[in-house]
């Protein structure tokens, strides 16, 4: 197990989150990276390590050149997807590099153009088994895959329409008090029901946003972080859960299609941090879809298995609730830069000063990161 409290997130930055932007991925990654470096009180020349996301499509030398960095001493590429890559894998690699003395300040950039041709569905269309066996049957696209999981979950545990709606309504309530959120218009049950159905039972409101945007953060040792401008936000716990189902069979052939390795990642993270779910002040949960966020809420131990729909319906994750979740609107209302904007929000909440949405005396935040069939749990602490 890695050691707790050794690395800190010293700088965070992002671009605006837009339904359709004009900038390409490299521009957005550069803009977010420079914002994160400045936020850390550093100069581009101070960055000597890079963790690159393979789905961003730009190697570290392009990023280093674009930000005008100094000597590169370390680089690595995450081998997972989504939130696992940005809020889990990248931090583990950064800690390994920093603790080994290979570099001092690691930049983790990411940007996405969801509006590019083929969009976020193109990745799955390239899977031979999906193209050969699922697409001709009309089983295609993430909302359809996750809708089939939602129906199975409801079959096993029960979930009314009102309970399902409570999750996106909760995240929208947070977005409404977040100036940078992409969707801030109020969502009550009537507005939820007016949202177009995609695949039963998932409506547009049950899906993450289409976003063009980028985000980045800087990781440094806790010793360095103490000399930088912000309160120290350290990685207290970090767990990664993997299984070996390839993407081609992921959504149809697993014994339980909505079972992600989130319990494993959470157990590792809590053990490393030496805390329990009840110690958390807030959480950020990767919300590609209502069903995946419900299941991860359970996997983090924030409620019992099969009870997440009732947990959200009771208002526990709302502003003022006992366990605030996705406090900047998450991916469903805040913006969809996979995993990245959740991690940035966690850091900002732990620093304090987030205005209307600030969780009082926030000191410990968990971030659940789903990515394909992998999962990360990261616990950040204000030291």
């Amino acid at each position: 197990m890695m050691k707790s409290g050794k690395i800190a997130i010293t700088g965070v930055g992002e671009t605006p989150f837009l339904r359709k932007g004009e900038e390409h991925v490299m521009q957005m990654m550069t803009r977010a990276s420079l914002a994160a470096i400045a936020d850390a009180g550093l100069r581009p020349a101070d960055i000597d390590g890079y963790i690159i996301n393979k789905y961003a499509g730009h190697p570290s030398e392009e990023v280093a050149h674009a930000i005008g960095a100094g000597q590169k001493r370390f680089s690595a590429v995450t081998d997972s997807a989504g939130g696992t890559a940005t809020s889990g894998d990248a931090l583990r690699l950064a800690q390994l590099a920093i603790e080994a003395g290979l570099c001092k300040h690691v930049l983790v950039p990411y940007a996405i153009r969801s509006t590019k041709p083929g969009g976020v569905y193109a990745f799955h269309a390239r899977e031979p088994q999906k193209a050969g066996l699922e697409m001709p049957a009309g089983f295609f696209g993430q909302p359809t895959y996750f809708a089939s999981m939602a129906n199975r979950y409801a079959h096993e545990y029960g979930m009314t329409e009102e309970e399902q709606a409570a999750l996106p309504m909760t995240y929208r309530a947070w977005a409404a008090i977040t100036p940078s959120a992409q969707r801030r218009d109020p969502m009550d049950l009537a507005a939820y029901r007016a949202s177009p159905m995609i695949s039963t039972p998932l409506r547009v409101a049950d899906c993450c946003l289409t976003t063009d945007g980028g985000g980045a953060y800087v990781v440094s040792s806790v010793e360095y972080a103490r000399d930088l401008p912000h309160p120290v936000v350290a990685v207290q716990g970090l767990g990664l859960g993997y299984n070996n189902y390839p993407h081609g069979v992921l959504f149809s052939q697993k014994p339980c299609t909505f079972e992600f390795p989130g319990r494993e990642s959470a157990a590792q993270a809590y053990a490393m941090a030496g805390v329990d779910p009840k110690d958390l002040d807030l959480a950020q949960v990767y919300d590609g879809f209502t069903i995946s966020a419900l299941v991860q809420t359970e996997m983090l131990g924030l409620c019992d298995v099969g009870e997440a729909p009732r947990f959200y319906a009771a208002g526990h994750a709302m502003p003022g609730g006992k366990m605030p979740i996705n406090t900047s609107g998450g991916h469903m209302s805040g913006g969809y830069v996979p995993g990245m904007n959740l991690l940035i929000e966690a850091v900002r909440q732990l620093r304090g000063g987030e205005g209307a949405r600030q969780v009082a005396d926030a000191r410990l935040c968990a971030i659940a990161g789903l990515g394909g069939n992998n999962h990360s749990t990261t616990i950040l602490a204000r030291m």
Partner: protein
Amino acid sequence: MGLPNYPVHLEDPLFQGFYDGLDAGELRVTVDAETGEFQWYPPEVVPGRPDARLEWRAVSPLGHAYTFTTVVRSLLPGDHKDEVPYTVILFEPDDAPGVRIAGVLVDDEGVTPACGMRLRFRPVEVGDHKIAGFVPA
């Protein structure tokens, strides 16, 4: 209800047996020719046995829905607006537990799809090819 009409990659030998089965009125899935274990979807490599050979085996036309969803907005590449709605089923044959075959619910007038519902396989013609259809049993 509509039906999805998306081209089948019949040129790929990995999936040929499935569509040959539909033409013959059978649901066929792949097994390890030596051990007889189901290997579904057909993998390029059987786990731990790179020399293993796959063969196609017909499974029961009777089974149940592991899960389902009614597609209202098609996300398939191209224009498929006129093909929705349709209900996709992940079907588990009675004699192949854990094997799931994607197909569509047919003859479903007045039927509310549900996990666990009993179904019978019936191939459905769509354009120039067939897909797996399932009727309430």
